[in-house]
């Protein structure tokens, strides 16, 4: 990609002019989005290529606002002056139709200030920097490397590259272009012996082919894959742990899950009417939610899998300290709900595609803890036994104390209205000189009490725990992390499911 050169959506000036003309003629405010995306996925199964798939999309969506704040929306996977004109009229018709059914009105967009920007992420390893056959060969090699560790293993490996660009324009003159390239390699590793199976995962993410070509990335993925494979094998025959309340240590990927599920979603202001972090629809700013050493931060990081510098309505995305040293500080606010929530908009709007309406979303969310215990070891090389040594040496647990180490994030879910969150791990260790492995179990709790129990952190920040967030049926890339490990004291509102 030539940074500073023409971008793919530059060619749509006439489409934008047509929308502006239509908006003026009908006296309507609008936000337009043009998306241009090409992607490729390579799927390797047990050392053989299962499929290479490609896809592309060039389309547009238009959100139209009447003077009194009624809204209509129309989208198509075609971009032309004719299509834009038709979509505008359809959206306008629906906005007017909705007004007959007391539809919700919102005029906050009229407060936006025009913005003109181009943000082009430079790619160190562009997608065409390696021949497809060579990429395929390398992936097969990565897959076999794990699969040949043990005959009980089977391994699926997926590489996905997405070259995506957005152009967002509004009737107020706003015209922004930005790209959101992303890439990941993902191993799904199943160990099988008789009727017993266990599946674990390992991945690495970024913005370009560096996930496959960069030496450091390769080393890291290899370590992660081998560790996950050994874990899957060890889980065969592992027992279930008794459910209950325990002192816990979670790794950075689970900490991302905690930040994302337990706090991030509840802090999104489009749902604040029924969120546990809202009171009468207002963000509960100033509420103490954790130890004063803890902060939760969300914001785009260049090169990150979930990077997005500009919002889906064409405003700059800000880095937000949701929790600042123990206090609830700021919401992830979209323009439509920020005022009602009593906070400033933070450019949190994201969409999955041109067919969707913007909602408040996270990007890269992380938990930061002041003065973490230093760890002089790469995360991937740390075993449960090493962790036990670190915790006892730091005085964070005493020999004989029952502490569970949860490792490997398997996804999570939250109901912000009731304050319940869950996420799952790949495995549980009971820490001791000789840690004992147990099957995974759900980690669940109450949003308003879990952070209060985070009492320590170990290691540096690691912020590459990737995933896809599916809020309101829209899948967008998410990422985040924390220090290598967080310690969570026993809490009656935090439970490990189990036998």
């Amino acid at each position, binding site marked *: 990609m030539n940074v500073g050169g023409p971008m793919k959506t530059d060619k749509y000036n006439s489409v934008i002019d047509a929308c502006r003309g239509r908006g003026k003629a009908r006296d309507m405010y609008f936000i337009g989005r043009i998306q241009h995306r090409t992607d490729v996925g390579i799927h390797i199964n047990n050392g053989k290529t299962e499929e290479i798939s490609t896809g592309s999309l060039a389309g547009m969506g238009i959100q139209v606002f009447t003077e009194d704040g009624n809204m209509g929306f129309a989208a198509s996977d075609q971009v032309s002056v004719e299509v834009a004109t038709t979509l505008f009229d359809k959206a306008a018709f*629906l906005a007017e139709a909705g007004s007959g059914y007391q539809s919700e009105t919102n005029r906050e967009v009229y407060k936006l200030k025009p913005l003109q920007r181009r943000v082009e992420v430079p790619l160190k390893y562009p997608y065409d920097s390696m021949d497809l056959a060579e990429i395929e060969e390398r992936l097969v090699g990565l897959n076999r490397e794990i699969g040949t560790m043990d005959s009980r293993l089977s391994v699926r490996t997926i590489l996905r590259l997405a070259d995506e660009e957005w152009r967002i324009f509004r009737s107020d003159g706003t015209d922004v272009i930005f790209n959101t390239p992303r890439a990941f390699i993902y191993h799904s590793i199943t160990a099988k012996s008789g009727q017993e199976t266990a599946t674990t995962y390992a991945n690495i993410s970024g913005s370009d082919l560096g996930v496959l070509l960069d030496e450091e990335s390769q080393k890291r993925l290899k370590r992660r894959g081998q560790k996950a494979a050994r874990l899957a094998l060890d889980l065969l025959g592992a027992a279930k742990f008794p459910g209950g309340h325990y002192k816990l240590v979670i790794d950075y990927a689970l900490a991302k899950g905690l930040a994302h599920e337990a706090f991030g979603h509840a802090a999104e202001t489009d749902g604040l009417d029924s969120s546990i972090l809202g009171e009468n629809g207002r963000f509960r700013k100033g509420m103490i939610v954790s130890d004063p050493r803890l902060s939760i931060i969300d914001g785009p990081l260049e090169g990150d899998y979930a990077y997005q510098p500009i919002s889906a309505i064409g405003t700059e995305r800000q880095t937000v300290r949701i929790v600042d040293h123990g206090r609830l500080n700021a919401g992830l606010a979209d323009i439509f709900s920020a005022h009602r929530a009593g906070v400033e908009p933070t450019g949190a709007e994201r969409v999955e595609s041109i067919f969707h309406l913007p909602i408040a979303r996270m990007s890269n969310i992380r938990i930061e803890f002041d003065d973490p215990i230093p760890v002089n070891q790469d995360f991937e090389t740390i075993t449960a036994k090493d962790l036990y040594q670190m915790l006892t040496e730091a005085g964070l647990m005493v020999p004989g104390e029952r502490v569970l180490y949860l490792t490997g994030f398997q996804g999570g879910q939250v109901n912000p209205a009731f304050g319940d969150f869950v996420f799952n791990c790949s495995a549980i260790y009971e820490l001791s000189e000789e840690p004992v492995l147990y099957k995974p179990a759900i980690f669940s709790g109450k949003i308003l009490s879990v952070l209060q129990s985070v009492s320590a952190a170990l290691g540096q920040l690691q912020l590459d725990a990737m995933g896809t967030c599916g809020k309101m049926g829209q899948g967008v890339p998410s990422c985040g992390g924390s220090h290598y490990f967080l310690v969570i004291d026993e809490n009656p509102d935090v439970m490990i499911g189990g036998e």
Partner: protein
Amino acid sequence: MEMHERLGELLRQSQKTNPRLKGWRFDLHWTDGLDIGVKNNQIGGPYSAPGYKQSISGEIYLVWEDFRFTAAKLEARVVEEFPDYLKLWEKTSYHDPDGVGIFTPASLPEVDLADAEAQAIIDRQVERPFELLSEGIHRLRQSGIRKVDARIKCFHDQRHLMNSDGFHLSYAQTPVEFYFIANDSYGKGYSEKKWPDAGDINRIIRETITVSQQLEEPCSATFSGSMTLILPPEMFETFINQFLIANLYGSLVLNRQSRFVLEDFQEHRPVIRDDLSLTINNLLPYRGSSYICTAEGVPGGTIVLIDGGKLQSPILNLKYAKKAGMNPTPVPPGGSGFFITGRNPFPQWEDVLNTIDRGLIIYSVLGMHTQDASSGHFSLTADQCLYVENGKIRGKTKAVINGDFILALNHRESQLFTVEGEDNPGFVFTANAIST
């Protein structure tokens, strides 16, 4: 000439001029329709504004010489920019010694999938989805529901399948979906290929009201240990999808990533109780899961995957059918279109409820997508439950639940029950539960 005909013609010409291209098929969808939401008791608004969407999508599959294949998504520009696409498709082809050629079905089933009423709504009666939502909001609010969220989608999908052996199928379908969610606690939905009749709408709204009202009554029960869990039909379907159907896909079975291996099917190994069977049926008129054939051309139909508790066939596309040495099967699209049946009729829910000493009716779980499907073990938070004692519903509670679902499907003590208007039964079994 329409887009699918032009694409077919371009591919035919390419085959003549490029001897490496041995065959092709595509499945093209031309879709348009309406999507309207309700948030916090109001139609529309910034997150659920009434919307119109149109798209051209689908997939293309090319067969090249030397066992090379292309799998790609179709989009609107594919005809205009065909030479570029063809170059890209050849460049991104892959070698697969197990790959399959083009399949043409000997015959195709007939099934009604297009509803004139739904089509009329998209074309000119846009007020009707608004009216359906308005009626739902009104009735739910009148019954004391504080917060109503809802959504309705009504689409027209013109589907065109063609292949290099001269196969051509074009048909229309009209998927319609709507749901109502009350107080963020309980929702009920409809997903068919026709506009709902008054009875459907009434049933969805009535059940949303009944259950959400029951979930408004808190109950102070505390429990820990073995417990009767009751999965209403939609929750039972969720469990079946996650822990049983997910293990039946041929690609997972043959790659040792499923709970089952191919020999289990060849030897008809018993995996669930011998009075239970699992069937796929894609041929019911106007059902959301019905279709005439898959993108590969495999006809929709009825197939028994588990008969009398014994495995019969994995879910097989053409490639894995070839690898397994078995016939390809229809697939359950989007995890629907399957049916659990029993050798004997199941009792009614009301009769089963009376027999439960202590149990939880589970309406919602958090974390299902995080569960290891191959293991059968579940560990979930059941955030919307009703506590049952001595055959009576006592009120709302929450629990962390754990168990082995496949084991439960084998237990003689597990029970299934019928609920009016539902395709599948509900399920009563014993697992571990801790109140939270």
